[in-house]
């Protein structure tokens, strides 16, 4: 009951946020936060549940970016029509994910991680070298002549919609038979396969779903930013950021990546605003990562949960003693 009330409260707060706080910097950060809530949750749906660490999700993000970018340029789209293209971004990313998954998911652990990194570099190289992607000079998004004061709002609501949908999907998958199979694969793939889990289709489905959402997030990000360059659409820091967010909040949980994205993305943007030295924020990101891995290896939420449970047990013990 209290959980439901909390959830309603969060949704209402998220829905009225840009109406209450109209500061452009704040809504700007909020849009980015929503994009990363979606991206981190999507990463978690695959990597968190299945245990296959992907450091190549920027491939799907960048695919989303370039899909809408090229489509809008070649079909001369402008204005509000842009949002109609977002599903296409997700679809392209999902279509690309199938062959990539078929290759990468044949191997496990380190090799899998390295293959995803290799895919990432192939994708970045392709975007830089092809003519249709605009090469290293990148792509420009269509100009949107919306009112400046509420310019961020449509992006915010689109982001919120995608983020909420992702969290819902994450929740449904975790509770489903499919989610159970995924987590069985994470714990012991050979045993799960022995018990009848069809490993490849299950992994591939999760990979594709995750890619679809990441592509959506990429498309939205592109329109919001207004331009794309290969090194930012396919950004190694993106690979790391989504993983960091999921790890920070709690890998394999539903709320963990959301919390991670809501804390880390605004923090990082704020730092970048305050500290003009780009490299310092990079160093800070690295240090933060190390601190989390060394001291909170299971994430904030699980650790906090354990702490609360232990506290409660101690209280009970004390009450019984009286």
């Amino acid at each position: 009951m209290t959980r439901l009330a909390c959830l309603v409260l969060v949704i209402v707060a998220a829905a009225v946020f840009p109406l209450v706080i109209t500061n452009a910097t704040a809504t700007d950060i909020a849009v980015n936060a929503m994009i990363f809530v979606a991206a981190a949750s999507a990463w978690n749906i695959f990597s968190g549940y299945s245990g296959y660490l992907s450091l190549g999700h920027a491939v799907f993000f960048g695919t989303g970016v370039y899909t809408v970018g090229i489509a809008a340029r070649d079909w001369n789209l402008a204005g509000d029509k842009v949002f109609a293209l977002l599903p296409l971004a997700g679809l392209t990313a999902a279509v690309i994910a199938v062959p990539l998954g078929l290759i990468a998911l044949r191997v496990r652990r380190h090799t899998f991680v390295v293959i995803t990194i290799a895919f990432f570099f192939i994708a970045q190289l392709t975007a830089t070298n092809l003519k249709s992607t605009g090469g290293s000079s990148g792509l420009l998004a269509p100009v949107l002549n919306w009112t400046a004061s509420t310019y961020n709002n449509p992006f915010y609501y689109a982001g919120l919609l995608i983020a909420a949908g992702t969290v819902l999907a994450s929740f449904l998958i975790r509770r489903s038979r499919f989610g159970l199979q995924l987590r069985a694969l994470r714990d012991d793939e050979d045993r799960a396969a022995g018990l009848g889990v069809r490993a490849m289709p299950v992994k591939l489905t999760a990979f594709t779903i995750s890619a679809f959402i990441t592509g959506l997030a990429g498309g939205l990000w592109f329109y919001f930013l207004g331009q794309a360059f290969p090194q930012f659409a396919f950004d190694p820091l993106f690979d790391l950021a989504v993983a960091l967010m999921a790890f920070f909040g709690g890998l394999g949980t539903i709320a963990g990546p959301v919390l991670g994205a809501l804390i880390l993305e605004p923090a990082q943007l704020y730092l970048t605003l305050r500290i003009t030295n780009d490299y310092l924020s990079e160093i800070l990101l690295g240090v933060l990562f190390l601190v989390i891995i060394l001291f909170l290896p299971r994430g904030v939420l699980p650790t906090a949960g354990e702490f609360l449970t232990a506290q409660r047990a101690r209280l009970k013990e004390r009450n019984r003693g009286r």
Partner: protein
Amino acid sequence: MAQEVYEAIADGILGGGVYALMAAGLTLIFGVLDIINIAQGILVVLGAYLSYVLSVHLHIDLFVGLLITIPVMFGVGVAIQWLFIRPLRGSERTSMTLLACYAVALIIEGILYSAFGANYVSLNAWYTQPNASVRVFGFFIPDIYLFGFGLAVVAALVLYYLLYRTTFGRSVRATMQDAVAARLVGIEVNRVAALTFGIGVAITAVGGMVYGSTSGGFNPNSGYDLISRLLAIIILGGLGSVGGAMLAAIFMTTAEALVDIWQPNWAVAVFYLALVLVLLVRPAGLLGRRAVRAQ
């Protein structure tokens, strides 16, 4: 045409020597510690910058400077292992160590950017000048390629001696085969792990020096390019196989040099394409054991 092909093959083999060495360090670290040191690329760049500082500010010859940079990088490696890798245990160790190495790479990259900026620099000495070259069978090989290859061969021999002719090497190989059994027969696995990580990183001092003087310029961002190649090489060679890594390195750089004649923009893609193709046929890599261990 034929001339170009021969030159490309010579370049590939000579250049591949250094990659072979760097990849050997990476795969050695994997074999003993069961982790992928994703910071290896930026550590090579760090090694290159160390050589740069020594040669520009202290006017020490690049090869003599190695006497300083190798121990320094060894210390850096041992410190990284001791501080950030050793404490990580448990079921998520694979991903945790990888991310820890990534974080270390980010920090080093940030520090290098703050210290040296984004401008490309390269290592210079008399043997890196464009006209310093040897004429072999009618075409020219730059001196630095020969020197670099010679250095790589020497370092590989030292590595071989260390691994196969000393007690330490015996314990390293025992740990690679079975860490638990090694511990049972009295090998201090933690110490072996720290030293191996140190050696694997010390190699980057050599790699960085040669890379810095042959690549035609590097900056802190070069680490990404390097690590992606090195990862492709060690996977192709078979994780944990030093010989496989060396073979794969020579193969890859030669293939890249050949494609570079026709398609300079796509030459790097050969690396990844070869990787994907090999893995489709042999998921364990060229010389890998069937040891892509259970999760």
